[in-house]
């Protein structure tokens, strides 16, 4: 079984500290390229910026499997300069404005520090305090004399990676965990398959990069590797929590249904049988909304059997998420073992 050690932790640190808001994924692309140069048979950046990597196996009857992990992260875009250093902004990807006031951020490719500001408590009336702060009352403030900060710049949270014993706290675990796993799978690619790795762009804006990546790669089957929310708190009134989505510590989350995809039952079976055989813990993500790159991949061309596996993480799409190192390791191993055991039999009906 593969292990998460210092090398892997350092890579995830580098990946989560890097900034790659949807549509400007260059910094992650560069890191990934450096990691896999020399391993891959083919590396290509496509028209939208997806990094498509091929690692061919040996022998006959090799299935061509596409694994997708998105490089982009949620963030902001400056849309109007109101005065020196003060900008109105829009969100890029799904962000709850209630999470924003007072957060430190980094603006533009130069990573100019800034803050998301709102009215201080002194100037907020008692009855306003209980209500939410809409986006239009928030501003990005980078201070005076920053001519390089311009309308159209992207920004994201300034959170730094932190290891907390068994856990990790960082921004953009969605989906740098997936990116880290996919790099590791390329480095340990089994010979029985052709591994088609797609490090995709613009997932957070509607699975856009994966759509063209799948069209170009035309695989036999595909998996999206992502991170999905865990909302696994005990209920305040002592009742059973029945809407947790996933639970930390319970291993990789296999998807059955989300807002965009009904996972192929053959793929669900393949993954769970691998987990059972190899004694790797896994959980089924609660069927519900949301979506992964699988949503656009499975509808590509004349159809592609597709599923998704996610590392559970708390506080997704906020300034910082929290995940367990063991869940990451189990996710990597479930995927690795599943690939080792992938044959045309998996797709038999």
């Amino acid at each position, binding site marked *: 079984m593969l292990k998460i050690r210092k090398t892997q932790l350092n890579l995830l640190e580098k990946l989560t500290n890097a900034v790659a808001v949807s549509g400007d994924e260059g910094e992650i692309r560069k890191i990934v390229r450096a990691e896999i140069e020399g391993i891959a048979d083919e590396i290509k950046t496509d028209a939208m910026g997806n990094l498509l990597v091929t690692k061919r196996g040996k022998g006959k009857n090799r299935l061509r499997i596409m694994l997708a992990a998105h490089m982009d992260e949620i963030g902001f875009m400056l849309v109007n300069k109101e005065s020196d250093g003060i900008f109105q902004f829009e969100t890029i990807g799904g962000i709850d404005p209630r999470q924003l006031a007072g957060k430190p951020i980094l603006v533009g490719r130069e990573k100019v520090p800034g803050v998301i500001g709102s009215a201080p408590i002194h100037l907020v009336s008692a009855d306003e305090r209980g209500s939410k702060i809409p986006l239009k009352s928030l501003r990005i403030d980078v201070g005076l004399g920053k001519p390089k900060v311009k309308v159209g710049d992207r920004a994201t949270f300034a959170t730094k990676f932190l290891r907390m014993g068994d856990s990790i706290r960082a921004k953009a675990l969605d989906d740098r965990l997936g990116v880290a796993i996919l790099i590791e799978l390329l480095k340990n690619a089994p010979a029985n398959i052709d591994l088609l790795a797609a490090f995709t762009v613009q997932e957070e804006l509607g699975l856009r990069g994966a759509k063209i990546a799948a069209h170009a790669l035309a695989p036999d089957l595909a998996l999206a590797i992502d991170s999905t929310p865990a909302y696994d708190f005990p209920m305040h009134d002592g009742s059973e929590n029945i809407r947790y989505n996933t639970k930390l510590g319970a291993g990789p989350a296999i998807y059955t249904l989300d807002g965009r995809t*009904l996972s192929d039952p053959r793929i669900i079976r393949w993954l769970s049988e691998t987990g059972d055989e190899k004694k790797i813990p896994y959980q089924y993500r609660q069927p*519900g909304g949301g979506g992964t790159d699988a949503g656009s991949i499975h509808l590509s061309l*004349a*159809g592609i059997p597709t599923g998704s596996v996610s590392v559970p993480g708390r506080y997704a799409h906020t300034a910082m998420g929290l995940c367990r190192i063991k869940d990451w390791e189990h996710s990597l191993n479930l995927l690795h073992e599943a690939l080792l055991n992938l044959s045309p039999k998996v797709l038999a009906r």
Partner: protein
Amino acid sequence: MKPLIKKLTETFSPSGYENAIREVIIEEIKDFADEIRVDALGNLIARKGSGGKKIMLAAHMDEIGIMVNHVDENGFARFSSLGGVFPQTLVGSRVKFVNGTSGVIGAHFLKRPVRLVMNNKMYVDTGATSPKNSPIQVGDVAGFERPFLDLGKRLVAKSMDDRIGVAVLIETLRELKSTPHEVYFVFTVQEEVGVRGATTSAYGVNPDIGIALDVTGADDVPEIDTKTIFLGKGPTFKFKDAGSLGDPRVIELFIKTARKNKIPYQREVATMGGTDARAIQLTHAGVPVMTLSVPCRYVHSPSEMVDYGDVQNTVKLLTKFLEKKVEL
């Protein structure tokens, strides 16, 4: 056709889990098609004729259902809907899981059923008392259990949407002795969750003309002021719905065919809904489409009602349409 309709509607195949219905259909059509294949997503594609215009006929073989999202500490299974399930039709319903388990839907002490599914307040009771002895787990899928009912002129069943379209395609394939076209009878998957099977099968078939066969809501019932679609007045030609505009040339061809053969039809303009035509029209460089519908009362309830005459007329019309050359 009634035994066929009974067999089709009493099979359980919610979206994404169409294995059972696909096997039933293959058995029914294998002696009549020139070629049969199953694509990557599970669409069943049967060809008859070759060399002429490629006409794709799509009827979806999936049905609405539910998927378990949690088995609680007392063995009750909470669930999400699979496709457009109306919560008010659920209380007291019986469900049958793909793995064979049966259960009933409970929500007995709760009011305001419309909000129940959203809030995860309804549950399936399979008789289990804990997650350990539950015969189902997260991700298991069920359809609604309701036997086929023959009322003579009117037929009632679960999943008339769209097994009646499936029945029409099967019967048309059997009736069609020869055709100048290359006709693809496509039994699509995952229509109820967003016309997904039609998206990929249309890409694979790459047709010249696309016709979706589906049910459409008949509003000839009490408490509706303006009635527009009636049972017993023939199949409908859809000019528009929320997903596609019927190609005027294709509609005209159907009107001509109907008139010539003295088959009743209804002109339909819908503000809501969508069919496989929505996906077919946008494939490759574009495809002229129309939806040919069988009027159906109580769509997306466990008791959907159609008129047997409408069903037979739809088969007759479609067969006549496919026998003749068409020019757009």
